[in-house]
């Protein structure tokens, strides 16, 4: 996030899109609801489903899945046409405005309605409301990014924020809600194929040399690696032969599971390190047990870039090691010593080698977490990015056009499937499905659909159905719901026995390489 969580209640207008916040980030949703109910702030909520947060919205919109650039460009067009843009901010702090303005010209309310189904007057009201607030903030989640146009969707939101002068101010910003406890940290620490810790590109000679000297090695590869989804294809082709997976369950979370399974089967060697026997671990050659969060020391970095301590509360199962200890043991057996004696020692090296972390230490994090960048030992941390000037100088506008999703409905597959999480479960359910109470609340998979769709298919609430896409099929019970618009159904992806990702489409966004989990075409019949 560019801004801290505490900024939510300081915004005048809060635009939430592609995030079922009350279910996936409940504590953040509380701040949004408080802002709307008690703070006199205005919420604009955009999601294909009638999610709970819409109850608190001044304006709500339900675009058809895959229509985001259309309504965002449409809003920008209205803002420009009515002269509501932040003219001085655009002139002083941004570049590329004219090309962007040209790109939105064709997004008339009429055209946007055609693509998204959003009524023209609602779009106009939303544009006026968002531009009217002195401080407007944008919060988004996977409903924006899990599309083949995911990167452009985010750029479109950045355009909207900058048009209104909302970047780099208190109560503003473009704020992705990170889904996993330490997804921010995994990225920051270089758990990505193209960057070292601190987002320094591996193909950049200077950075590579810096890291070589920091790590006391030579010959670091200057070639960016491949992403998780690309690894599946590489395994299938035979160019990837060995895979070491830590704390992750791609055989439930990847799009198009049948394809993923084929890829994994083709590996010569698969080692999986986890706390439970996951679907992925089942297919491994070696399974290594690891300690869970309550059994070890360390840090997680939350969605607002706040580095926070994780502390050991209990001893883990006898003899089981922490993930870092296992990796170091393997390295040693491969002939490389990684001689750390504690997580704190590792953190000290992180601070020494990662510019944004230089000022951080366990001592400083003892009482409360600190948001990076934190360049010196007396720096308080940086809750807001881009204040005064953008990190790169001027903020860039991007001209953007709309393209339809990779798979659209037809006579054979007439319904749109969108996937997501439930309040009571977490990702592939490795932890939550071992929890008795949570399973009592959400015991099984379902397919949520509008009453009119169910009626047309001759399906009653609770009826077992077979759901089929071009890639696979699963069985789940119908849940008739007023939250769904006609033509679109929702399936949670937590349940291995009815894995929504058997159905999803693994077409990727060309830049972020994120699969299009949020749109694919399916058909449903009684089972």
């Amino acid at each position, binding site marked *: 996030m560019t801004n*801290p*969580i505490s900024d939510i209640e300081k915004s005048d207008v809060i635009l939430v899109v592609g995030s079922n916040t009350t279910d996936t*980030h*409940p504590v953040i949703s*509380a701040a949004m609801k408080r802002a709307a109910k008690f703070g006199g702030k205005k919420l604009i909520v955009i999601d294909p489903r009638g999610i709970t947060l819409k109850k608190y919205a001044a304006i709500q919109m339900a675009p058809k899945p895959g229509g985001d650039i259309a309504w965002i460009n449409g809003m920008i067009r209205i803002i420009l046409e009515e002269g509501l843009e932040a003219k001085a901010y655009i002139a002083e702090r941004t570049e590329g405005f004219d090309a962007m303005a040209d790109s939105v010209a064709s997004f008339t309310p009429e055209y946007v309605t055609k693509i998204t189904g959003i009524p023209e007057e609602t779009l106009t009201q939303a544009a006026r409301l968002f531009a009217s607030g002195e401080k407007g903030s944008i919060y988004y989640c996977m409903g924006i990014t899990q599309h083949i146009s995911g990167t452009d969707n985010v750029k479109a939101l950045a355009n909207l924020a900058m048009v209104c002068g909302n970047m780099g101010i208190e109560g503003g910003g473009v704020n992705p809600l*990170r889904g*996993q*406890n*330490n*997804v921010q940290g995994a*990225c920051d620490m*270089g*758990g*990505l*194929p193209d960057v*070292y810790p601190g987002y320094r590109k*591996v193909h950049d000679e200077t950075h590579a040399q810096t890291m070589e000297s920091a*790590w006391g090695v030579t*010959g*670091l*590869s200057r070639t*960016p*690696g*491949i992403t*998780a989804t690309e*690894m599946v294809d*590489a395994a299938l082709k035979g160019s*990837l032969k060995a895979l*070491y997976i*830590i704390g*992750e369950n*791609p055989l439930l979370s990847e799009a198009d599971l049948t394809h993923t399974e084929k890829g994994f089967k083709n590996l010569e060697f698969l080692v999986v390190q986890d*706390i*439970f026997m996951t679907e992925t671990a089942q297919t491994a*050659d*070696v399974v290594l*047990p690891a300690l*869970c969060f309550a059994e070890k020391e*360390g840090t997680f970095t*939350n969605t607002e870039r706040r580095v926070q*301590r*994780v502390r050991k509360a*209990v001893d883990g*199962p006898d*003899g089981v090691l922490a*993930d*870092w200890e296992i*990796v*170091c*043991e*393997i390295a040693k*057996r491969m002939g490389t010593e*990684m001689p750390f004696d504690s*997580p704190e020692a*590792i953190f000290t090296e992180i601070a020494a080698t990662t510019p944004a972390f230089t000022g951080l230490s366990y001592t400083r994090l003892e009482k409360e977490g600190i948001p990076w960048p934190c360049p010196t030992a007396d720096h308080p941390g940086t809750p807001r990015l881009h204040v005064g000037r953008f990190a790169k100088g001027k903020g860039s506008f991007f001209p953007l056009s709309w393209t339809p999703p990779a798979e659209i409905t037809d006579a054979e597959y007439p319904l749109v499937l969108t996937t997501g999480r439930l309040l009571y479960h977490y990702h592939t359910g490795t*932890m939550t499905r*071992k*929890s008795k109470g949570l399973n009592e*609340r959400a015991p099984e998979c379902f397919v949520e659909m509008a009453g009119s769709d169910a009626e047309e298919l001759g399906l009653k609430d609770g009826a077992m159905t077979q759901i089929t896409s071009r890639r696979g099929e699963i069985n789940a019970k119908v849940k008739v719901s007023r939250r769904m618009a006609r033509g679109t159904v929702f399936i949670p992806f937590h349940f291995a026995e009815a894995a929504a990702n058997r159905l999803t489409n693994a077409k990727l966004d060309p830049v972020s390489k994120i*699969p299009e989990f949020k749109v694919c075409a399916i058909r449903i019949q009684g089972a």
Partner: protein
Amino acid sequence: MEKERNITIDGREFRFSEGETILTVAKRNHIDIPTLCHLKGTTPTGACRICVVEVEGARTLMTSCTVPATVGMVVRSESPEVIRSRRMTIELMLTSGRHDDCLVCPSSGNCRLQELAFRYKVKGTTFEDTGVKYPMESVNPFILRDFSKCILCGRCVQACNEVQVNEAIDMGYRGSATKIITKGDVALKDSDCVFCGECVQVCPVAALVPKDARITPRLSEMKEVKTTCSYCGVGCQMNLHVKNNRVWQVTGCEESAPNYGSLCVKGRYGFDFIASDKRLTTPLIKENGTFREASWDEALTLTAKRLKEISDVQSDATGLLTSARITNEENYIAQKFARTVLKTNNVDHCARL
């Protein structure tokens, strides 16, 4: 020049800013006015009357949580009359429902009413207690509602409506029949409740406790370890309450950003996986399609050997998926291992999924 705003509490003068209550000024200056219904961040209700103080010139005692400080106000926070009033309030609370069983009560040692009874030496024997008006509710996996312990302070209602804004509970019925109810007075499991447990955390007595609180250690006898929640990216700060190497309860850290005490159902109640008997406890090696148990040394050596064989031929034929679930330190080690030992940049994690 702005006029100086001063208030006198217990003979000492303090400055205050416009709108501050007597309680806020007193607290800031370490004057311990006891409270019960007062809940930080919500509209004061003045419901419990424990925080009453004597204000010079006022006809009655005033609730310090609702009355704003005014210039020249003279307050006595612990006068004989204040103490008399507080003792009567506590006496009445102790006779509403059943509060005579601290020995077997799950909240003992962590009960505001018990603390107040001790501070003001009230035994709750003056009046006959009102008995149990409503049966206990336990038909959900997380929360036990014991109405015989409820003193109707309203903190749970404030927490549900003004902090978490789930709007699941409110005061229902009237007079001596008053009860905290869901819409239609149905069980929590059939209501709008999403089991965030904020109400349990703020309940000052034992009216709302974790479902298994009667058969697990009390909060007061457990060690508290502050840590970060391992579910979503909000990074809520939480206390794990531990005894005999087991986590029995989780509460939110009220003084820490970003959550200031709030948690969701997963963070507060979804911790039983830690002690699950399904945890992996020993390395496994697959032979002829089935797993067999192996020693650490054997499993690590085999892994190292196979990875080395493959990376020695073609380093980019290996890959590593690190994790958005493990710590920064572990992610750092994992990518350093991939880049310096496997000698590949084929390192990624589940950020996109």
